[in-house]
């Protein structure tokens, strides 16, 4: 792809931030999964959020996509946080699984918050029962699994649908793809736990922003 302005913006940043935003270095949450709360206050990403030159230089179209993504990640983050806090909801054998998935979502929130800088926002008010439609969302594991699958599949379709809108920024497109495949891994595992096929065919279909927001809206209080 041709030289793009975003890369030069990244190149001008603190190398450590550049590394975080661009690199594919791999870490691990380990089997002793981190508590979710610990991640959100991780100085790693948030320390730079307040003065984020990266965010300040982003084209409006890319900011819109990242804000849209942050909304979805906030829902997922809150969903797993609440599920892990709900006593007796998640069977013991799956606590590590959901702690790991929740840690990824918390990390996505922190990452997008850092990338957006001044355009980032706190978690919106949520209603995980979707106005009572899923009244037992946090007391019935089957309902919880259904919602988990819904959010993960929705995330996969949402990122896929937005990829083309990120094409002018190599770094942000790559990061979005890296989140996209993590959501797909989650979706497959959650479906399997629920006794469902982990896929609906050979190709995963995208959803438009409007379609995704319509699906997410009932969960936004």
């Amino acid at each position, binding site marked *: 792809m041709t030289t793009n302005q975003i890369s030069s913006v990244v190149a001008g940043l603190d190398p450590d931030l550049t590394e975080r935003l661009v690199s594919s270095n791999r*870490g691990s949450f380990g089997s002793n999964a981190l508590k979710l709360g610990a991640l959100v206050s991780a100085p*790693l990403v948030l320390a730079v959020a307040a003065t984020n030159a990266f965010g300040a230089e982003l084209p409006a179209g890319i900011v819109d996509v990242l804000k849209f993504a942050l909304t979805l990640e906030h829902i997922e983050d809150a969903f797993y946080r609440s599920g892990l806090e709900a006593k007796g909801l998640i069977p013991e054998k799956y606590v590590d699984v959901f702690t790991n998935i929740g840690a990824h979502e918390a990390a996505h929130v922190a*990452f997008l918050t850092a990338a957006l800088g001044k355009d980032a926002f706190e978690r919106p008010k949520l209603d995980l029962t979707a106005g009572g439609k899923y009244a037992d969302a946090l007391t019935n594991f089957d309902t919880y699994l259904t919602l988990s699958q819904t959010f993960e599949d929705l995330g996969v379709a949402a990122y896929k649908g937005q990829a*083309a809108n990120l094409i002018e920024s190599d770094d942000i497109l790559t990061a979005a*793809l890296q989140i*996209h495949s*993590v959501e797909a891994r989650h979706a497959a595992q959650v479906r399997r736990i629920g006794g469902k096929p*982990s896929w609906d065919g050979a190709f995963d279909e995208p959803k438009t922003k409007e379609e995704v927001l319509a699906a997410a809206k009932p969960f936004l209080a």
Partner: protein
Amino acid sequence: MNTNFRLSRRHVLKWSGAAATVAVAGSLLPNFGISTALAADLGEGDIGVLNYAYALEQLEAAFYTMVVKSPYADMSADETAILTDIMDHEVAHRDFLKKALGEKAIGDLEVDFSAVDFTKRDSVLGTAKVFEDLGVSAYNGAGKLIENPDYLLAAGKIVSIEARHAAVIRDLLDPDSISPSGGDIIDKNGLDVVNTPAMVLKAAGPFIKTAFTANSLV
């Protein structure tokens, strides 16, 4: 950190089940030691990226076709169904890319799975895990090389299926753990692995006999 790629001084392949490690060496260009003059290049731009994906899907399709044709001992009904689904998906991906490429498509690759013991569950699933994770990292790394938004979307429709495969293969190897969702490979920002074409083709090289180069995919 779990990386399956290591450089060593000689072209060495170690391939044994869950601990599968590919260690290869050579120049940084993935030309498999074949003179560039003798090898077909994948091509430039979007054609090069699509041929790159087409090569990987050919490899995966050939692998799962073998797996389904000669099942390992005691393959369960669940595993048979999963591996047959995955075979069908990889064949569909391969055929989709071939059609998209038309006359620009590279030829059929000759594969070499002599390092895989198809009678052993660990060898088959360990290989599958490496192929699926490698495929995900390949598409994640190739996205930025694609210029045409339609091709980018097509790649997106494939990569999340590869990620789903990776999760399920990982679940077969390490059930109900953090492995299916990539607990051991996802970074601190919650991001999946990215690999360049050079890295991917170096890792896949030992399984592909056909000479080809990807000199334009950097």
